[in-house]
């Protein structure tokens, strides 16, 4: 049993990286726009379907379909912001939440109506499925997921910490009105955040597509995991969202292998309950409390 542990950890981190990407987009919107986006998982679902249609339906080459799906989803993020968030931006947070819940119901049903219910598969990023490194079969798709997740985290760090745009985004997330009084375009900052958040969601979708089936329901599942990751890590905390995603991925994979496969999805939430019992504010929650 222990012999497969390294393999399980590898797989768990790979799945966890997907949750982390999705969770990262979720947290960004909380921080920059105070939007709890219940449709975050639908960004992944739509991204995966766009890729599927481009690849299988239109016949676009693989990498082009991958990139195009992500770029189109960035645009969709802006449209989403305009339709779901912007009209309600001066209303209570609850109004916006309900609006995103509405979108999370509408979007899968639009796909259902246009594409139909049958799940589909998409091939992996690389033709070579993987190679052995010691005891571990390094699946290239999981490897791609991890590399892209790390790249996105680094990119995000650079943007937020090293550029003036990043400072403006942070300022907007901390005090929108004050940011506007300094001449920062809050609307532009919010739209950029939505676009970026949709990119993260779409990346999670197109990366998970070869691993799981592309299905209408995949967005809901991913959103739940991303939300749980965010709570485990500490509500609204960026490193926490990443760590939370990885923890859930590991818990699921290890739980499925060692305890029970049918209950795979339950292990992540079990961890969530445990974390809430021991650290109600999540792993990095205290930091937020201090800052506030």
């Amino acid at each position: 049993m222990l012999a497969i542990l390294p393999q399980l950890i590898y797989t768990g981190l790979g799945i966890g990286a997907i949750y982390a990407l999705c969770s990262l987009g979720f947290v960004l919107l909380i921080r920059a726009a105070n939007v709890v986006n219940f449709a975050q998982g639908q960004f992944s679902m739509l991204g995966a379907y766009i890729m599927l249609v481009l690849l299988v339906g239109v016949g676009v080459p693989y990498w082009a379909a991958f990139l195009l799906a992500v770029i189109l989803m960035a645009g969709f993020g802006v449209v989403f912001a305009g339709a779901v968030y912007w009209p309600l931006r001066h209303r209570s947070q609850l109004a916006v939440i309900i609006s995103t819940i509405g979108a999370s119901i509408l979007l899968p049903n639009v796909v259902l109506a246009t594409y139909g219910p049958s799940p589909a598969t998409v091939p992996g990023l690389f033709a070579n499925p993987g190679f052995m490194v010691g005891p571990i079969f390094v699946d290239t798709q999981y490897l791609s997921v991890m590399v892209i997740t790390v790249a996105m985290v680094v990119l995000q760090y650079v943007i937020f910490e090293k550029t003036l745009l990043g400072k403006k985004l942070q300022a907007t997330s901390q005090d929108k009105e004050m940011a506007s009084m300094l001449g920062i375009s809050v609307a532009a900052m919010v739209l950029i955040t939505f676009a970026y958040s949709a990119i993260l969601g779409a990346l999670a979708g197109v990366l998970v597509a070869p691993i799981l089936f592309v299905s209408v329901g995949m967005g809901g599942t991913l959103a739940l995991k991303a939300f749980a990751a965010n709570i485990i890590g500490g509500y609204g905390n960026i490193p926490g969202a990443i760590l939370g995603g990885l923890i859930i991925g590991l818990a699921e994979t290890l739980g499925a292998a060692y305890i029970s496969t049918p209950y795979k999805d339950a292990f992540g939430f079990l961890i969530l309950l445990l974390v809430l019992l021991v650290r109600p504010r999540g792993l990095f929650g205290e930091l937020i409390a201090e800052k506030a």
Partner: protein
Amino acid sequence: MSLLAIEGLHARYNAGEVLHGLDITVEEGEIVALLGANGAGKTTTLRAISGLLSHVSGKIDFAGETMLGKGPGAIVRAGIAHVPEGRRVFPGLTVRENILLGASNRPTLKRAAREQEMEAMLEHFPDLRRMQNALGWTLSGGQQQMLALARGLMATPKLLLLDEPSLGLAPLIVQQVFRIIAEIRKRGTTVLLVEQNAHMALSVADRGYVLETGRILVSGKPDALWNDPKVRAAYLGGVEA
């Protein structure tokens, strides 16, 4: 022509009207004090000028151009910077970053020039220089006020709106703040100063207005205001010079 000319300014929140027709002028180079008790409408007046309120009517002209109906971004680009009540320092950004963002109204400013201006600003605020890499939320009230002033000045405004810069500060720090305000004017920036601390405000101001429940009760030179029995009764009553 006055730098700022306000006529018949009305403003209301959903709960009702709180400014009932104000006339205020500010000449270039002046420090004008806007005084009044809690709830008189001082903050509302400044927020109306800055384009932060949605239900405003009347005339707000700045340097001959109307500001009414413009958004806060356009107004700060026109040259009015607002250092708001409560300082509103960005808590998760460092002192340097807070100051840098003060120049956001000048998008064409090159990076090097921006950094240089920030360094120059830090020269004026030795306290901030010492704390330059500290996050906003770790600063004391006095330091936050200095930071808010520095950030406001980074806009290189023609008119600076200051909302209760002395609130909650120790007397020594209050004096420091007012010294800075006097210095700001000496460097050519016009100031509209909202204060509860009438004594300090009138000591630096050229003229003042006293607001009472959304109306101008009286206006004039500091001496005249200080000795006006109406003002004393309505507002300065308990305060001894």
